[in-house]
């Protein structure tokens, strides 16, 4: 799928066919006919890649329970190669937990996750093709380590201490992509929130991944900086095919950049093209009544995908 299709929104119904039309409930029909009977949600896990040959991300019937609390349940969706999917939902909806479960940082009660055709519990060599940017990076800000040295950690095969001069150019190129080349020799703990996010994005992009998973990339960034951050990701997507899954809290951003949106509030409440599925009743279900009226969007006639205007 070309980027023009995605952003221009010329053919949302067509583009939506694979991932939105044939949703994983349908997949269950094909695979084992277990759909509809809630207790038998364990879909057959084999052959999913054949069913969705273009899927970069395949999440099926994923449920996470921690300490007796259901954080989310029965979440299923597919993200095609080259698509941008955004996960929205209120605080505590389970967005970060979903991302962390997808990456196998948390073990789900049930369900499977396939990333780039591999089970997320056993990714093997596919790992180097996945870039991940956490919501918050917990680290000791006083520790003397520079941006360049952090980037070296991603180039781990070639070692940390040797041949540094040769690697500077690779790192510089990666930082230039996110307009962070000036930060190369800065200590990581001294960066501002926005600068740190750029560096983390460069880190996630360093090995030219095919899949980028970003957990709320704008958290802790001022509004002006945030716009450019999304534009940055969008721009990289126009240069090469890159599948992006990101958590977002901003509906404006979702309408502008997402091919598909996933509304999460303990369960998946909507799944599809933002302009089509983000109806007031869905938003109300996701966020509650107040937010839905606040975010009620006025569609531009020339833009089938719609734009959200806050009034």
């Amino acid at each position: 799928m070309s980027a023009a299709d995605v952003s221009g929104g010329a053919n949302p119904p067509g583009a939506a066919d694979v991932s939105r039309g044939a949703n994983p409930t349908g997949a269950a029909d094909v695979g084992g006919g277990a759909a509809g009977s809630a207790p038998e949600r364990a879909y057959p896990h084999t052959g999913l890649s054949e069913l969705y040959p273009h899927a970069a991300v395949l999440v099926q019937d994923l449920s996470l329970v921690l300490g007796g609390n259901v954080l989310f349940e029965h979440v299923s969706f597919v993200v095609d190669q080259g698509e941008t999917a955004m996960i929205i939902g209120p605080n505590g909806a389970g967005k970060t937990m979903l991302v962390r479960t997808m990456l196998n940082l948390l073990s789900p009660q049930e369900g499977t996750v396939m990333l780039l055709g591999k089970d997320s519990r056993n990714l093997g060599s596919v790992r180097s093709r996945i870039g991940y940017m956490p919501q918050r990076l917990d680290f000791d800000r006083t520790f003397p380590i520079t941006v360049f040295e952090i980037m070296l950690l991603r180039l781990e095969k070639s070692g940390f201490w040797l041949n540094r001069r040769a690697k500077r150019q690779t790192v510089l190129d990666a930082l230039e992509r996110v307009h962070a080349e000036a930060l190369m020799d800065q200590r990581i703990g001294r960066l501002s929130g926005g600068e740190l996010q750029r560096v983390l994005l460069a880190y996630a992009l360093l090995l030219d991944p095919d899949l980028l998973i970003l957990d709320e990339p704008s958290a802790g960034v001022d509004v002006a900086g945030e716009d450019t951050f999304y534009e940055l990701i969008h721009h990289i997507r126009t240069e090469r095919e890159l599948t992006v899954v990101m958590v977002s809290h901003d509906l404006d951003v979702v309408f502008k950049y997402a091919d598909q949106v996933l509304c999460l509030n303990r369960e998946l409440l909507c799944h599809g093209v933002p302009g089509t599925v983000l109806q007031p009743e869905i938003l109300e279900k996701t966020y509650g009544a107040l937010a839905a009226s606040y975010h009620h969007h006025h569609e531009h006639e020339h833009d089938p995908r719609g734009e959200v205007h806050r009034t």
Partner: protein
Amino acid sequence: MTDLLPFLQYPFMQRALVAVVTVGFLCAVMGVYVTLRSMSFFSDAISHSALAGIALGVLLGIDPVVAAVVFCVAVAAGITFLTVRTELTSDTVIGVFFSGSMALGVLLIGLQKGYQTDLLSYLFGDVLAVNNLDVALSLSLAGIVVFSLFRRSTLLIKIAFNRDLALVEGARVVAWDYAFMMLLALTVAVSVKIVGIVLVSALIIVPAAAARNVASDFRRLMGIAIVIGLTGAIAGLVASYYLDTASGPTMVMVVVLIFVATLIAGRRS
């Protein structure tokens, strides 16, 4: 050489110099990772648990240093296991092991017959008492630890920097937690005879902490920590020879003075 450094004419001083250089280098490198992982308290607990290991060794008639290595590794594994497998916080687990192994050590010392001059020398170290076997053991164990630390430094730094990133990139984080604690236990056991149980963690923590005051990046941090560790070890040994003081505490005092100096220098810049 002996004209310049007259004390080097004595074989026990030659052995002592090799021993302190080995331990100074080893502890400094280890300290960089220990401070990066905020494990100062852990290294303190491991070094104190060496007391029980040494007492056990003397009681059973095996080499105290070998017994200390085994005991420190066991305590390190126990702490790591309980931290990973239970809800207890690591400082609680460390606190239990710390006091438990100290009590055991003192009890075991009490079981010895007669005057325990040999045992007590382990508390504050006695570098002049090291024999050729000790030096050989220190050198080989230090070689293993330093090689491992440098060989896998990318991984160790990444895990210390952010565990989630390391996990997503496929690092076997828990396995490396165990491996790191084993390396730390080896470091402590190797150093105990030279600087003593009470002071070994100072020699691990202080050079890295001092380097942290002035270093701008990780490479300099490592380099400066090693220089400080070696300076403290050599200057401490020489000073203890001329001042007729205990060598372990003198070495620690030198690195602490360097720490104060770097603190002031770091504040100014």
